[in-house]
């Protein structure tokens, strides 16, 4: 579904990932872990910008931005709190690739938005101003925005950061539902190994500029060996 083969990535003048490869399939939930500054965000960024990224066999170099927006949705670490922007309006931004030049929503778009909000358990928050939401609520809304974009691939940068412990587990379970019941290919960077271990199919571990992807059972031991 999405793959990178033998690429090196730099941050500024520093090469942080050397000759790494990553292959992810439909219905797979993969946690990307590594120390601060190891290159998790850089790798996630490369998956939507590096020419050598292949999405369903097509290189990003040959994929128009509009087509990419129908294939990959992202959730960044940024908290989007905008006064007077309601929950459903923020989620509806995810419909941008499918709307006309004014961004006018059709009935089908409204249905998809309502469904996405329901999937993240935020239906009761419809009509609420996004500037009044907690971090956890906002994170769910941002995930709903990615769901509304209806892409087969979702990439999330630290979706559990700054959340309380129960909400971290809830977000991880939500991602697992999306991968295992909706068949989406999901990669998310995290430091919450405890919340990710029970739900993820695979772990992509970055250490010392190298990347290895392992099934969860094997990953647990490797994480123990590397990080503890």
């Amino acid at each position: 579904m999405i793959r990178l083969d033998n690429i090196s990535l730099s941050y500024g003048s520093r090469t942080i990932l050397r000759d790494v490869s990553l292959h992810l399939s439909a219905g797979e939930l993969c946690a990307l872990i590594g120390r601060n500054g190891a290159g998790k965000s850089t790798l996630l960024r490369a998956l939507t910008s590096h020419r050598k990224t292949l999405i369903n066999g097509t290189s990003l170099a040959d994929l128009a931005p509009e087509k990419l927006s129908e294939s990959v949705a992202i959730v960044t670490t940024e908290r989007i709190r905008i006064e007077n922007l309601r929950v459903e309006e923020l989620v509806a931004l995810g419909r941008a690739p499918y709307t006309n030049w004014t961004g006018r929503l059709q009935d089908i778009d409204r249905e998809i938005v309502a469904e996405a909000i329901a999937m993240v358990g935020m239906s009761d928050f419809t009509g609420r101003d996004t500037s009044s939401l907690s971090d956890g609520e906002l994170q769910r809304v941002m995930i709903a925005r990615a769901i509304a974009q209806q892409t087969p691939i979702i990439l999330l940068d630290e979706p559990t950061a700054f959340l309380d412990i129960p909400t971290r587990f809830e977000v991880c379970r939500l991602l697992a539902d999306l991968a295992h019941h909706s068949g989406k290919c999901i990669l998310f960077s995290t430091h919450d190994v405890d919340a990710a271990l029970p739900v993820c199919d695979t772990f992509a571990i970055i250490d010392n500029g190298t990347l290895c992807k392992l099934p969860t059972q094997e990953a647990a031991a490797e994480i123990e060996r590397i990080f503890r």
Partner: protein
Amino acid sequence: MRSRTTILTIMLALLCVVLFVADIAVGSVTIPLADIVSALMGRGPAEVRSIVVDIRLVRAVVAVLAGAALSVSGLQMQVLFRNPLAGPYVLGVSAGASLGVALFVLGVPLLGIVLSPALQSIGTAGAAWIGSAVVLMAVVALSRRIKDIMVMLILGIMLSSGVSAVVEIMQYFSSEAALKSYVVWTMGSLGDVTAAQLALLAPVIIVGLAMGVAAIKPMNTLLAGERYAASMGLNISRSRMLILTSTTLLAGTITAFCGPVGFVGIAVPHIARMLFRSADHRTLLPATVLTGVVMLLLGDIVAKYFTLPINTITALMGIPIVIYIVMRRR
């Protein structure tokens, strides 16, 4: 929510019409409504027709265009820079236009060149466009490195002060006539625009506003930031260019013809957001246009009544809004 938007839109549109007529009526001689209508229909005494059609109608139309243009340019800059305190005046874009105009108005006579009034008008507008475009490019380049809102504003103030210093040096070497025309321009006036100048100003503002309409979806998508916008298929560089060109045409042209009119661009989008309780630019763009038109017509009526420069009135109207925004963010 939709009914609230509709009611507010109708009320503001009606207020615009009332203020437009009031703006024509108010002046050194107050003209009754019936006489205004007669004059507009080509009837009545020639001197009243001349005052209404040649002077006050032109001035009122300029107020409408200036209100719409400055407000929309402020709205665009606030979205583009993701900065609630952005506006053509505070980020130094008006200062850039001022520098362009100063170089043209003060510089051309220094070179011994005498221009016809038509060339003078076009040259002033062109100089303001170039000046504002250059400053906008500089601000965009800086904003890519500096994310702090306050630092950007301080840089805007520094830019304005730098421009003032350069202009002052030019003033020192300028002739009295050139100096006077520049100083009068800096005071800001909606009444100095002639019908011939309006014929140049109006189409440019309409093009700028049309580009603003074309940028509605990009502006909505950019609410979430450039990275999200790009992930939703938005061509960032093309959209940024569209918005910047529109802003330059709108703010640069008004500054060229009416002088630096401050605090409309920064304050009006916030008034529109508060009134319409919306962040959707399909609602906000027309709301901002109507609110801006109301503010400028109101400002012009007060300016005429007390014989004051328009930018002092807009400053007094806009500054409390800016203070409110700053205090609320703390």
